[in-house]
Protein backbone atom coordinates (compact mmCIF):
# COMPACT_ATOMS: atom_id res chain seq x y z
CA UNK A 1 0.00 0.00 0.00
CA UNK A 2 1.63 3.24 -1.09
CA UNK A 3 1.16 6.36 0.95
CA UNK A 4 -0.90 9.24 -0.40
CA UNK A 5 1.23 12.35 -0.19
CA UNK A 6 -1.18 14.94 -1.50
CA UNK A 7 -4.93 14.81 -1.91
CA UNK A 8 -7.23 17.44 -3.31
CA UNK A 9 -11.00 17.09 -2.94
CA UNK A 10 -13.44 19.29 -4.87
CA UNK A 11 -11.24 22.34 -5.01
CA UNK A 12 -12.98 25.39 -6.47
CA UNK A 13 -11.36 28.76 -6.99
CA UNK A 14 -12.89 32.06 -8.02
CA UNK A 15 -11.26 35.28 -9.15
CA UNK A 16 -13.34 38.20 -7.94
CA UNK A 17 -11.51 40.91 -9.80
CA UNK A 18 -12.49 42.40 -12.25
CA UNK A 19 -15.58 40.15 -12.50
CA UNK A 20 -16.47 36.99 -10.67
CA UNK A 21 -15.11 34.07 -12.67
CA UNK A 22 -14.48 30.49 -11.70
CA UNK A 23 -10.96 29.40 -12.59
CA UNK A 24 -10.92 25.95 -10.94
CA UNK A 25 -13.88 23.61 -10.99
CA UNK A 26 -14.12 20.59 -8.69
CA UNK A 27 -10.50 19.57 -8.86
CA UNK A 28 -10.08 16.18 -7.22
CA UNK A 29 -7.00 14.03 -7.51
CA UNK A 30 -4.27 12.55 -5.37
CA UNK A 31 -0.55 11.95 -5.67
CA UNK A 32 1.06 8.88 -4.15
CA UNK A 33 4.56 8.67 -2.79
CA UNK A 34 7.23 8.10 -5.43
CA UNK A 35 5.03 9.30 -8.31
CA UNK A 36 6.31 11.67 -10.97
CA UNK A 37 3.19 13.61 -12.03
CA UNK A 38 2.92 16.41 -14.53
CA UNK A 39 0.04 18.84 -14.96
CA UNK A 40 -0.37 20.15 -18.48
CA UNK A 41 -2.78 22.32 -20.31
CA UNK A 42 -2.99 25.47 -22.33
CA UNK A 43 -2.09 28.85 -21.00
CA UNK A 44 -4.84 30.18 -18.74
CA UNK A 45 -6.39 26.79 -17.97
CA UNK A 46 -5.69 27.26 -14.28
CA UNK A 47 -2.77 24.88 -13.81
CA UNK A 48 -0.51 27.41 -12.11
CA UNK A 49 -3.38 28.64 -9.96
CA UNK A 50 -3.93 25.06 -8.87
CA UNK A 51 -0.26 24.61 -8.03
CA UNK A 52 -0.24 27.68 -5.78
CA UNK A 53 -3.26 26.33 -3.92
CA UNK A 54 -1.59 22.93 -3.57
CA UNK A 55 1.56 24.65 -2.34
CA UNK A 56 -0.43 26.31 0.52
CA UNK A 57 0.66 29.79 -0.58
CA UNK A 58 -2.82 30.61 -1.88
CA UNK A 59 -5.43 30.04 0.82
CA UNK A 60 -8.44 31.60 -0.90
CA UNK A 61 -10.24 28.53 -2.26
CA UNK A 62 -13.10 26.10 -1.55
CA UNK A 63 -12.67 22.39 -1.00
CA UNK A 64 -10.22 20.28 0.98
CA UNK A 65 -6.48 19.94 0.59
CA UNK A 66 -4.56 17.30 2.52
CA UNK A 67 -0.79 17.13 2.55
CA UNK A 68 0.68 14.04 4.21
CA UNK A 69 -2.86 13.29 5.44
CA UNK A 70 -3.08 16.64 7.19
CA UNK A 71 -5.97 19.00 6.38
CA UNK A 72 -4.68 22.45 5.38
CA UNK A 73 -7.91 24.34 6.04
CA UNK A 74 -7.92 26.51 9.16
CA UNK A 75 -4.17 26.56 9.65
CA UNK A 76 -2.49 29.83 10.52
CA UNK A 77 -0.06 31.59 8.20
CA UNK A 78 2.87 30.55 10.40
CA UNK A 79 1.77 26.89 10.44
CA UNK A 80 1.48 26.87 6.64
CA UNK A 81 4.92 28.44 6.36
CA UNK A 82 6.26 25.64 8.53
CA UNK A 83 4.62 23.02 6.28
CA UNK A 84 6.11 24.63 3.16
CA UNK A 85 9.47 24.69 4.87
CA UNK A 86 9.39 21.09 6.02
CA UNK A 87 7.35 19.14 3.49
CA UNK A 88 7.38 20.98 0.17
CA UNK A 89 10.26 21.84 -2.12
CA UNK A 90 9.78 24.45 -4.83
CA UNK A 91 11.28 24.97 -8.25
CA UNK A 92 10.00 27.99 -10.16
CA UNK A 93 10.21 29.02 -13.79
CA UNK A 94 12.52 31.83 -12.86
CA UNK A 95 15.27 30.64 -10.61
CA UNK A 96 14.44 32.88 -7.63
CA UNK A 97 17.75 32.61 -5.90
CA UNK A 98 18.73 35.31 -3.42
CA UNK A 99 21.47 37.33 -5.10
CA UNK A 100 22.76 38.58 -1.75
CA UNK A 101 23.96 35.11 -0.80
CA UNK A 102 26.35 32.49 -2.12
CA UNK A 103 25.05 29.38 -3.83
CA UNK A 104 25.76 27.32 -0.73
CA UNK A 105 23.92 29.76 1.55
CA UNK A 106 20.95 29.83 -0.82
CA UNK A 107 20.67 26.07 -0.53
CA UNK A 108 21.16 26.18 3.24
CA UNK A 109 18.54 28.86 4.06
CA UNK A 110 15.44 26.61 4.27
CA UNK A 111 17.50 24.10 6.25
CA UNK A 112 18.63 26.75 8.70
CA UNK A 113 15.04 27.92 9.04
CA UNK A 114 13.85 24.37 9.84
CA UNK A 115 16.53 24.01 12.53
CA UNK A 116 16.29 20.22 12.43
CA UNK A 117 20.05 19.98 12.00
CA UNK A 118 22.93 22.05 13.28
CA UNK A 119 24.47 24.66 11.00
CA UNK A 120 27.51 22.51 10.12
CA UNK A 121 25.24 19.59 9.39
CA UNK A 122 23.00 21.69 7.17
CA UNK A 123 26.11 22.88 5.34
CA UNK A 124 27.24 19.29 4.88
CA UNK A 125 23.83 18.25 3.57
CA UNK A 126 23.75 21.20 1.19
CA UNK A 127 27.17 20.24 -0.22
CA UNK A 128 25.95 16.66 -0.66
CA UNK A 129 23.00 17.82 -2.72
CA UNK A 130 25.12 20.17 -4.80
CA UNK A 131 27.45 17.23 -5.45
CA UNK A 132 24.54 15.02 -6.50
CA UNK A 133 23.52 17.67 -9.02
CA UNK A 134 27.11 18.15 -10.19
CA UNK A 135 27.45 21.79 -9.22
CA UNK A 136 29.47 21.55 -6.01
CA UNK A 137 32.25 23.53 -7.69
CA UNK A 138 29.98 26.59 -7.73
CA UNK A 139 29.18 26.48 -4.02
CA UNK A 140 31.01 29.66 -3.05
CA UNK A 141 29.98 31.77 -6.04
CA UNK A 142 27.36 34.46 -5.72
CA UNK A 143 23.97 33.47 -7.11
CA UNK A 144 24.03 36.16 -9.80
CA UNK A 145 27.30 34.85 -11.28
CA UNK A 146 25.63 31.62 -12.48
CA UNK A 147 24.10 30.71 -15.83
CA UNK A 148 20.38 30.02 -16.13
CA UNK A 149 20.76 26.24 -16.16
CA UNK A 150 23.09 26.34 -13.17
CA UNK A 151 20.69 28.53 -11.25
CA UNK A 152 17.85 26.12 -11.84
CA UNK A 153 19.97 23.25 -10.56
CA UNK A 154 20.81 25.27 -7.44
CA UNK A 155 17.06 25.88 -6.99
CA UNK A 156 16.49 22.12 -7.16
CA UNK A 157 19.22 21.55 -4.57
CA UNK A 158 17.52 24.11 -2.34
CA UNK A 159 14.18 22.35 -2.80
CA UNK A 160 15.80 19.11 -1.63
CA UNK A 161 17.57 20.40 1.48
CA UNK A 162 14.86 19.46 3.99
CA UNK A 163 14.02 16.07 2.41
CA UNK A 164 10.52 17.25 1.40
CA UNK A 165 7.78 14.72 0.86
CA UNK A 166 6.93 16.41 -2.44
CA UNK A 167 8.68 18.68 -4.91
CA UNK A 168 6.48 21.10 -6.82
CA UNK A 169 7.64 22.79 -9.98
CA UNK A 170 6.02 25.64 -11.91
CA UNK A 171 7.36 25.43 -15.46
CA UNK A 172 10.85 24.56 -14.16
CA UNK A 173 12.19 24.17 -17.72
CA UNK A 174 10.11 26.98 -19.22
CA UNK A 175 12.97 29.44 -19.29
CA UNK A 176 15.76 27.03 -20.32
CA UNK A 177 17.17 25.93 -23.65
CA UNK A 178 16.85 22.33 -24.86
CA UNK A 179 20.15 21.16 -23.39
CA UNK A 180 19.51 22.56 -19.93
CA UNK A 181 15.88 21.40 -20.01
CA UNK A 182 17.13 17.87 -20.59
CA UNK A 183 19.58 18.17 -17.72
CA UNK A 184 16.83 19.36 -15.35
CA UNK A 185 14.46 16.66 -16.54
CA UNK A 186 17.11 13.99 -16.06
CA UNK A 187 17.68 15.22 -12.54
CA UNK A 188 13.97 14.91 -11.76
CA UNK A 189 13.91 11.46 -13.30
CA UNK A 190 16.92 10.42 -11.27
CA UNK A 191 15.46 11.80 -8.02
CA UNK A 192 12.31 9.85 -8.64
CA UNK A 193 14.06 6.60 -9.55
CA UNK A 194 16.86 6.60 -6.99
CA UNK A 195 15.38 8.44 -4.01
CA UNK A 196 11.66 7.69 -4.51
CA UNK A 197 11.10 11.43 -4.55
CA UNK A 198 7.53 12.51 -5.26
CA UNK A 199 7.31 15.20 -7.93
CA UNK A 200 4.43 17.36 -9.15
CA UNK A 201 5.41 19.50 -12.10
CA UNK A 202 3.29 22.03 -13.98
CA UNK A 203 4.48 22.31 -17.60
CA UNK A 204 3.24 23.05 -21.08
CA UNK A 205 6.17 21.19 -22.61
CA UNK A 206 4.55 18.09 -24.09
CA UNK A 207 7.80 16.13 -24.51
CA UNK A 208 8.57 16.77 -20.85
CA UNK A 209 5.12 15.62 -19.75
CA UNK A 210 5.15 12.50 -21.87
CA UNK A 211 8.18 11.16 -20.03
CA UNK A 212 6.55 11.38 -16.58
CA UNK A 213 4.56 8.60 -14.88
CA UNK A 214 1.24 10.32 -15.05
CA UNK A 215 -0.14 13.32 -16.90
CA UNK A 216 -3.00 15.36 -15.50
CA UNK A 217 -4.41 17.41 -18.33
CA UNK A 218 -6.47 20.46 -17.62
CA UNK A 219 -8.77 22.61 -19.68
CA UNK A 220 -10.93 25.52 -18.57
CA UNK A 221 -10.36 24.82 -14.90
CA UNK A 222 -11.25 21.13 -15.08
CA UNK A 223 -9.23 17.95 -15.16
CA UNK A 224 -9.96 16.25 -18.45
CA UNK A 225 -7.59 13.33 -18.30
Amino acid sequence: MTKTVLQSTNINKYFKDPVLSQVLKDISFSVDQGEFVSITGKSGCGKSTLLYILSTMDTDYEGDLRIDGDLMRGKTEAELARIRNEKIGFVFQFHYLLNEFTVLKNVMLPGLKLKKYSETEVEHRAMERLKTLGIDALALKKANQLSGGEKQRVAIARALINDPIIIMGDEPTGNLDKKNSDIVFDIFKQLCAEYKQTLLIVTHDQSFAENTHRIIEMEDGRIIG
Partner: protein
Amino acid sequence: MNIKLIADIAKSLLLARWRQSLVAAIGVTFSITMFIALLGFMNGLNDLLDGLILNRTPHVRLFNEIKPNPNQPINLTSDFQDGHNFIQSIKSSGVRLEIHNGGAILEALKVDPRVLGISPKISSPVLYNSGTIDITGVVSGIDVIAESALFFFKDYVREGAPLDLKNVSNSIILGKGVAEKLLAEIGDVVQVTTSKGDRLPLKVVGTFQSGIADFDKIQSFASIATVQKLLGKPNTYITDIQIKLKDLNTAPVVAKEYARLFQADAEDIQTANSQFETGSSIRSLISYAVGIVLLVVAGFGIYNILNMMIYEKMDTIAILKATGFSGSDVRKIFLGIALTIGLLGGLMGLVLGFSLSLIIDQVPFNTAALPTIKTYPINYNPKFYLIGITFSLITTYLAGFFPARKASKIDPVIIIRGK
Protein backbone atom coordinates in the same frame (compact mmCIF):
# COMPACT_ATOMS: atom_id res chain seq x y z
CA MET B 1 12.84 31.65 17.00
CA ASN B 2 15.96 31.49 14.96
CA ILE B 3 17.36 34.92 15.81
CA LYS B 4 20.75 34.18 14.31
CA LEU B 5 19.34 33.26 10.90
CA ILE B 6 17.07 36.33 10.86
CA ALA B 7 19.98 38.57 11.86
CA ASP B 8 22.11 36.95 9.17
CA ILE B 9 19.55 37.63 6.44
CA ALA B 10 18.99 41.19 7.71
CA LYS B 11 22.73 41.79 7.62
CA SER B 12 23.01 40.50 4.05
CA LEU B 13 20.14 42.69 2.84
CA LEU B 14 21.65 45.66 4.66
CA LEU B 15 25.07 45.12 3.11
CA ALA B 16 23.64 44.42 -0.34
CA ARG B 17 22.49 48.04 -0.42
CA TRP B 18 25.14 49.44 1.86
CA ARG B 19 25.13 52.89 0.28
CA GLN B 20 21.43 53.39 0.99
CA SER B 21 21.85 51.95 4.45
CA LEU B 22 24.74 54.32 5.06
CA VAL B 23 22.71 57.33 3.94
CA ALA B 24 19.91 56.32 6.30
CA ALA B 25 22.38 55.83 9.15
CA ILE B 26 24.01 59.19 8.43
CA GLY B 27 20.58 60.80 8.72
CA VAL B 28 20.24 59.36 12.21
CA THR B 29 23.85 60.23 13.03
CA PHE B 30 23.32 63.83 12.02
CA SER B 31 20.15 64.15 14.11
CA ILE B 32 21.70 62.59 17.19
CA THR B 33 24.86 64.67 16.79
CA MET B 34 22.83 67.86 16.67
CA PHE B 35 20.59 66.64 19.47
CA ILE B 36 23.55 65.97 21.78
CA ALA B 37 25.43 69.16 20.86
CA LEU B 38 22.31 71.30 21.13
CA LEU B 39 21.22 69.90 24.48
CA GLY B 40 24.76 70.01 25.86
CA PHE B 41 25.19 73.63 24.77
CA MET B 42 21.71 74.74 25.84
CA ASN B 43 22.03 73.15 29.24
CA GLY B 44 25.56 74.50 29.61
CA LEU B 45 24.12 77.96 29.03
CA ASN B 46 21.24 77.23 31.38
CA ASP B 47 23.61 76.17 34.13
CA LEU B 48 25.67 79.28 33.53
CA LEU B 49 22.75 81.70 33.58
CA ASP B 50 21.12 79.96 36.52
CA GLY B 51 24.45 79.96 38.31
CA LEU B 52 24.72 83.68 37.71
CA ILE B 53 21.75 84.23 39.99
CA LEU B 54 21.17 80.98 41.85
CA ASN B 55 24.77 80.44 42.97
CA ARG B 56 24.70 83.81 44.65
CA THR B 57 21.20 83.56 46.03
CA PRO B 58 20.70 81.83 49.37
CA HIS B 59 18.13 79.06 49.37
CA VAL B 60 16.55 80.65 52.42
CA ARG B 61 17.25 84.15 53.66
CA LEU B 62 16.31 85.22 57.19
CA PHE B 63 15.87 88.95 57.76
CA ASN B 64 13.59 91.51 59.31
CA GLU B 65 11.55 93.51 56.89
CA ILE B 66 10.15 96.94 57.55
CA LYS B 67 6.39 96.48 57.26
CA PRO B 68 3.15 97.28 59.06
CA ASN B 69 2.31 95.15 62.06
CA PRO B 70 -0.13 92.45 60.93
CA ASN B 71 -1.84 92.61 64.35
CA GLN B 72 -3.39 96.07 64.35
CA PRO B 73 -5.14 97.05 67.60
CA ILE B 74 -8.58 96.97 66.02
CA ASN B 75 -8.18 93.24 65.37
CA LEU B 76 -7.56 92.63 69.06
CA THR B 77 -10.88 94.02 70.26
CA SER B 78 -13.91 91.75 70.22
CA ASP B 79 -16.29 94.64 69.39
CA PHE B 80 -15.61 94.56 65.66
CA GLN B 81 -15.01 90.82 65.17
CA ASP B 82 -18.00 90.42 62.81
CA GLY B 83 -17.27 93.39 60.56
CA HIS B 84 -14.71 94.13 57.93
CA ASN B 85 -12.26 96.69 59.25
CA PHE B 86 -11.12 99.56 57.13
CA ILE B 87 -8.16 101.39 58.64
CA GLN B 88 -6.41 104.06 56.70
CA SER B 89 -2.95 105.61 56.98
CA ILE B 90 -1.35 102.66 58.74
CA LYS B 91 2.39 103.19 59.09
CA SER B 92 5.07 100.57 59.21
CA SER B 93 6.19 99.92 62.74
CA GLY B 94 9.72 100.74 63.79
CA VAL B 95 11.05 97.26 63.71
CA ARG B 96 14.70 96.53 64.38
CA LEU B 97 16.60 95.43 61.29
CA GLU B 98 18.84 93.35 63.50
CA ILE B 99 18.01 89.67 63.67
CA HIS B 100 17.01 89.14 67.23
CA ASN B 101 19.16 86.64 69.12
CA GLY B 102 21.26 86.05 65.98
CA GLY B 103 23.97 84.05 67.74
CA ALA B 104 21.51 81.48 69.05
CA ILE B 105 19.86 81.15 65.65
CA LEU B 106 23.24 80.54 64.00
CA GLU B 107 23.98 77.80 66.53
CA ALA B 108 20.56 76.18 65.92
CA LEU B 109 21.04 76.29 62.14
CA LYS B 110 24.49 74.73 62.34
CA VAL B 111 23.05 71.51 63.80
CA ASP B 112 20.05 71.34 61.45
CA PRO B 113 20.69 68.29 59.18
CA ARG B 114 18.95 69.88 56.19
CA VAL B 115 21.33 72.82 56.14
CA LEU B 116 24.42 72.67 53.94
CA GLY B 117 25.92 75.90 55.20
CA ILE B 118 25.14 79.33 56.58
CA SER B 119 26.64 82.73 56.05
CA PRO B 120 25.69 85.73 58.20
CA LYS B 121 25.57 89.12 56.57
CA ILE B 122 25.00 92.77 57.31
CA SER B 123 23.61 95.02 54.64
CA SER B 124 24.00 98.72 55.04
CA PRO B 125 23.14 101.53 52.64
CA VAL B 126 26.06 103.98 52.37
CA LEU B 127 27.41 106.90 50.38
CA TYR B 128 30.80 106.58 48.72
CA ASN B 129 32.50 109.96 48.91
CA SER B 130 34.63 111.09 46.02
CA GLY B 131 35.63 114.71 46.24
CA THR B 132 32.41 116.64 46.19
CA ILE B 133 30.38 113.83 44.76
CA ASP B 134 28.49 111.29 46.83
CA ILE B 135 27.58 107.99 45.20
CA THR B 136 24.86 105.93 46.81
CA GLY B 137 25.58 102.29 47.33
CA VAL B 138 25.41 99.31 49.61
CA VAL B 139 28.15 97.75 51.68
CA SER B 140 27.63 94.15 52.69
CA GLY B 141 29.47 92.76 55.64
CA ILE B 142 30.28 89.14 54.93
CA ASP B 143 32.17 86.20 56.32
CA VAL B 144 34.60 85.78 53.40
CA ILE B 145 35.28 82.10 53.98
CA ALA B 146 31.62 81.07 54.32
CA GLU B 147 30.64 83.35 51.45
CA SER B 148 33.27 81.79 49.18
CA ALA B 149 32.32 78.25 50.12
CA LEU B 150 28.58 78.75 49.62
CA PHE B 151 28.23 81.50 47.07
CA PHE B 152 31.48 81.35 45.08
CA PHE B 153 32.48 84.86 46.19
CA LYS B 154 36.12 84.23 45.21
CA ASP B 155 35.17 83.60 41.57
CA TYR B 156 33.92 87.11 41.18
CA VAL B 157 36.86 88.95 42.69
CA ARG B 158 38.73 90.24 39.64
CA GLU B 159 41.67 91.94 41.36
CA GLY B 160 43.16 91.50 44.80
CA ALA B 161 42.84 88.64 47.25
CA PRO B 162 39.43 88.00 48.84
CA LEU B 163 41.03 86.88 52.09
CA ASP B 164 42.53 90.36 52.58
CA LEU B 165 39.02 91.42 53.54
CA LYS B 166 39.44 89.31 56.66
CA ASN B 167 43.15 89.90 57.24
CA VAL B 168 43.36 93.65 56.67
CA SER B 169 41.32 95.72 59.07
CA ASN B 170 39.03 98.44 57.67
CA SER B 171 39.29 97.01 54.16
CA ILE B 172 36.76 96.93 51.30
CA ILE B 173 36.31 95.18 47.97
CA LEU B 174 34.57 97.54 45.55
CA GLY B 175 32.19 96.61 42.79
CA LYS B 176 33.74 97.19 39.36
CA GLY B 177 31.29 99.97 38.55
CA VAL B 178 31.86 101.68 41.90
CA ALA B 179 35.66 101.45 41.50
CA GLU B 180 35.45 103.05 38.04
CA LYS B 181 33.35 105.93 39.32
CA LEU B 182 35.66 106.52 42.28
CA LEU B 183 38.79 105.99 40.16
CA ALA B 184 39.92 103.76 43.01
CA GLU B 185 42.63 101.13 42.70
CA ILE B 186 43.98 98.57 45.11
CA GLY B 187 45.75 100.27 47.98
CA ASP B 188 43.68 103.47 47.72
CA VAL B 189 41.53 104.63 50.61
CA VAL B 190 37.88 105.51 50.01
CA GLN B 191 35.58 107.40 52.35
CA VAL B 192 32.28 105.77 53.20
CA THR B 193 29.42 107.55 54.98
CA THR B 194 26.47 105.77 56.57
CA SER B 195 22.90 107.01 56.61
CA LYS B 196 23.45 108.15 60.18
CA GLY B 197 26.32 110.39 59.01
CA ASP B 198 29.21 108.38 60.43
CA ARG B 199 32.20 108.42 58.14
CA LEU B 200 34.94 105.80 57.92
CA PRO B 201 37.96 105.57 55.62
CA LEU B 202 38.34 102.07 54.12
CA LYS B 203 41.28 100.61 52.26
CA VAL B 204 40.56 99.05 48.85
CA VAL B 205 41.93 95.47 48.70
CA GLY B 206 40.20 94.34 45.53
CA THR B 207 37.44 94.77 42.97
CA PHE B 208 34.78 92.30 41.99
CA GLN B 209 32.59 91.80 38.95
CA SER B 210 29.39 89.81 39.34
CA GLY B 211 28.24 89.85 35.73
CA ILE B 212 25.25 92.05 36.55
CA ALA B 213 26.45 95.58 35.78
CA ASP B 214 23.79 97.44 37.77
CA PHE B 215 24.68 95.38 40.80
CA ASP B 216 28.38 96.17 40.42
CA LYS B 217 27.66 99.91 40.32
CA ILE B 218 26.36 100.02 43.88
CA GLN B 219 27.63 96.97 45.71
CA SER B 220 30.80 96.63 47.79
CA PHE B 221 31.90 94.08 50.34
CA ALA B 222 33.63 94.40 53.67
CA SER B 223 34.06 92.07 56.62
CA ILE B 224 31.28 91.79 59.20
CA ALA B 225 33.44 93.42 61.86
CA THR B 226 34.20 96.39 59.59
CA VAL B 227 30.53 97.03 58.83
CA GLN B 228 29.63 96.66 62.51
CA LYS B 229 32.27 99.28 63.25
CA LEU B 230 30.95 101.48 60.41
CA LEU B 231 27.44 101.36 61.83
CA GLY B 232 28.59 101.64 65.42
CA LYS B 233 26.91 98.38 66.38
CA PRO B 234 28.06 95.63 68.77
CA ASN B 235 29.69 92.47 67.40
CA THR B 236 26.49 90.43 67.68
CA TYR B 237 24.70 92.64 65.17
CA ILE B 238 23.68 90.93 61.91
CA THR B 239 20.80 91.76 59.57
CA ASP B 240 20.68 88.69 57.33
CA ILE B 241 21.32 85.00 57.66
CA GLN B 242 21.84 83.29 54.33
CA ILE B 243 21.17 79.56 54.36
CA LYS B 244 22.10 77.03 51.70
CA LEU B 245 20.14 73.78 51.93
CA LYS B 246 21.13 70.30 50.83
CA ASP B 247 17.97 70.05 48.75
CA LEU B 248 16.95 73.25 46.98
CA ASN B 249 13.38 72.02 46.45
CA THR B 250 12.63 71.97 50.18
CA ALA B 251 13.34 75.70 50.48
CA PRO B 252 9.71 76.96 50.59
CA VAL B 253 8.79 74.53 53.38
CA VAL B 254 11.94 75.20 55.37
CA ALA B 255 11.51 78.97 54.93
CA LYS B 256 8.01 78.84 56.45
CA GLU B 257 9.24 76.76 59.36
CA TYR B 258 12.16 79.11 60.09
CA ALA B 259 9.94 82.18 59.85
CA ARG B 260 7.74 80.76 62.59
CA LEU B 261 10.58 79.33 64.69
CA PHE B 262 12.90 82.35 64.63
CA GLN B 263 10.17 85.04 64.38
CA ALA B 264 11.83 86.67 61.40
CA ASP B 265 11.01 87.06 57.74
CA ALA B 266 12.20 84.16 55.62
CA GLU B 267 12.35 84.23 51.84
CA ASP B 268 12.97 81.12 49.77
CA ILE B 269 14.83 81.01 46.47
CA GLN B 270 11.81 79.91 44.46
CA THR B 271 9.90 83.03 45.46
CA ALA B 272 12.91 85.29 45.02
CA ASN B 273 13.87 84.05 41.56
CA SER B 274 10.90 82.26 40.07
CA GLN B 275 11.54 83.70 36.63
CA PHE B 276 14.84 81.83 36.30
CA GLU B 277 13.23 78.45 36.82
CA THR B 278 10.75 79.32 34.08
CA GLY B 279 13.48 80.46 31.69
CA SER B 280 15.50 77.28 32.18
CA SER B 281 12.61 74.94 31.63
CA ILE B 282 11.48 76.79 28.49
CA ARG B 283 15.00 76.65 27.05
CA SER B 284 15.20 72.91 27.77
CA LEU B 285 11.81 72.42 26.19
CA ILE B 286 12.91 74.20 23.01
CA SER B 287 16.10 72.18 22.68
CA TYR B 288 14.24 68.90 23.22
CA ALA B 289 11.63 69.93 20.66
CA VAL B 290 14.28 70.79 18.05
CA GLY B 291 16.14 67.53 18.77
CA ILE B 292 13.00 65.44 18.40
CA VAL B 293 12.04 67.21 15.18
CA LEU B 294 15.48 66.35 13.78
CA LEU B 295 14.95 62.71 14.75
CA VAL B 296 11.50 62.58 13.19
CA VAL B 297 12.95 63.90 9.93
CA ALA B 298 15.61 61.19 10.07
CA GLY B 299 12.82 58.71 10.79
CA PHE B 300 11.08 59.65 7.54
CA GLY B 301 14.38 59.10 5.72
CA ILE B 302 14.61 55.59 7.14
CA TYR B 303 10.96 54.97 6.29
CA ASN B 304 11.57 55.94 2.65
CA ILE B 305 14.69 53.87 2.31
CA LEU B 306 13.09 50.80 3.85
CA ASN B 307 10.06 51.18 1.60
CA MET B 308 12.32 51.38 -1.42
CA MET B 309 14.28 48.37 -0.22
CA ILE B 310 11.08 46.37 0.13
CA TYR B 311 10.03 47.19 -3.43
CA GLU B 312 13.46 46.13 -4.64
CA LYS B 313 13.46 42.97 -2.60
CA MET B 314 9.95 41.77 -3.47
CA ASP B 315 11.43 38.66 -5.11
CA THR B 316 13.57 37.93 -2.11
CA ILE B 317 10.61 38.28 0.23
CA ALA B 318 8.47 36.07 -2.01
CA ILE B 319 11.08 33.35 -2.18
CA LEU B 320 11.69 33.47 1.56
CA LYS B 321 8.00 33.03 2.11
CA ALA B 322 7.72 30.25 -0.48
CA THR B 323 10.53 28.32 1.16
CA GLY B 324 8.97 28.46 4.58
CA PHE B 325 9.66 31.81 6.22
CA SER B 326 6.50 33.15 7.86
CA GLY B 327 5.22 36.73 7.71
CA SER B 328 6.53 37.41 11.20
CA ASP B 329 10.02 36.22 10.17
CA VAL B 330 9.98 38.69 7.29
CA ARG B 331 8.77 41.44 9.59
CA LYS B 332 11.58 40.71 12.03
CA ILE B 333 14.13 40.85 9.23
CA PHE B 334 13.05 44.34 8.18
CA LEU B 335 12.66 45.59 11.75
CA GLY B 336 16.14 44.23 12.36
CA ILE B 337 17.42 46.28 9.42
CA ALA B 338 15.70 49.42 10.75
CA LEU B 339 16.98 48.97 14.29
CA THR B 340 20.51 48.25 13.08
CA ILE B 341 20.46 51.52 11.14
CA GLY B 342 19.09 53.27 14.23
CA LEU B 343 21.62 51.75 16.62
CA LEU B 344 24.70 52.26 14.45
CA GLY B 345 23.60 55.72 13.35
CA GLY B 346 22.73 56.60 16.93
CA LEU B 347 26.05 55.40 18.37
CA MET B 348 27.97 57.31 15.69
CA GLY B 349 25.80 60.31 16.55
CA LEU B 350 26.73 60.03 20.24
CA VAL B 351 30.43 59.95 19.40
CA LEU B 352 30.17 62.85 16.95
CA GLY B 353 27.87 64.77 19.31
CA PHE B 354 30.44 64.38 22.07
CA SER B 355 33.20 65.53 19.70
CA LEU B 356 31.16 68.52 18.60
CA SER B 357 30.52 69.39 22.26
CA LEU B 358 34.27 69.21 22.90
CA ILE B 359 34.88 71.57 19.98
CA ILE B 360 32.21 74.05 21.14
CA ASP B 361 33.76 73.83 24.60
CA GLN B 362 37.02 75.18 23.12
CA VAL B 363 35.47 78.16 21.33
CA PRO B 364 36.52 81.36 23.15
CA PHE B 365 33.66 83.22 24.74
CA ASN B 366 34.62 86.41 26.54
CA THR B 367 32.01 88.74 27.85
CA ALA B 368 32.22 91.46 30.45
CA ALA B 369 29.06 90.15 32.04
CA LEU B 370 30.54 86.72 32.75
CA PRO B 371 34.01 87.20 34.18
CA THR B 372 34.72 83.55 35.04
CA ILE B 373 33.77 82.19 31.60
CA LYS B 374 36.46 81.85 28.95
CA THR B 375 34.82 79.43 26.48
CA TYR B 376 31.27 78.40 25.59
CA PRO B 377 29.75 76.36 28.38
CA ILE B 378 28.78 72.73 27.71
CA ASN B 379 26.90 70.32 29.92
CA TYR B 380 28.12 66.71 29.47
CA ASN B 381 25.26 65.11 31.37
CA PRO B 382 25.10 61.39 30.39
CA LYS B 383 21.32 61.71 30.59
CA PHE B 384 21.29 63.43 27.16
CA TYR B 385 23.28 60.59 25.63
CA LEU B 386 20.89 58.04 27.07
CA ILE B 387 17.87 60.00 25.79
CA GLY B 388 19.57 60.38 22.39
CA ILE B 389 20.18 56.68 21.84
CA THR B 390 16.75 55.74 23.21
CA PHE B 391 15.03 58.19 20.89
CA SER B 392 17.05 57.03 17.89
CA LEU B 393 15.95 53.45 18.55
CA ILE B 394 12.31 54.42 19.10
CA THR B 395 12.20 56.56 15.93
CA THR B 396 13.83 53.92 13.76
CA TYR B 397 11.55 51.26 15.21
CA LEU B 398 8.50 53.34 14.32
CA ALA B 399 9.96 54.20 10.89
CA GLY B 400 10.63 50.50 10.28
CA PHE B 401 7.34 49.25 11.66
CA PHE B 402 5.06 50.08 8.73
CA PRO B 403 7.40 49.03 5.90
CA ALA B 404 8.14 45.81 7.82
CA ARG B 405 4.45 45.12 8.23
CA LYS B 406 3.94 45.72 4.53
CA ALA B 407 6.76 43.30 3.73
CA SER B 408 5.24 40.66 6.01
CA LYS B 409 1.93 40.94 4.14
CA ILE B 410 3.37 40.53 0.65
CA ASP B 411 1.59 37.67 -1.11
CA PRO B 412 4.29 35.49 -2.71
CA VAL B 413 1.81 34.14 -5.29
CA ILE B 414 1.29 37.60 -6.79
CA ILE B 415 5.04 38.20 -7.06
CA ILE B 416 5.87 34.78 -8.48
CA ARG B 417 2.96 34.77 -10.95
CA GLY B 418 3.69 38.32 -11.99
CA LYS B 419 6.98 37.34 -13.58
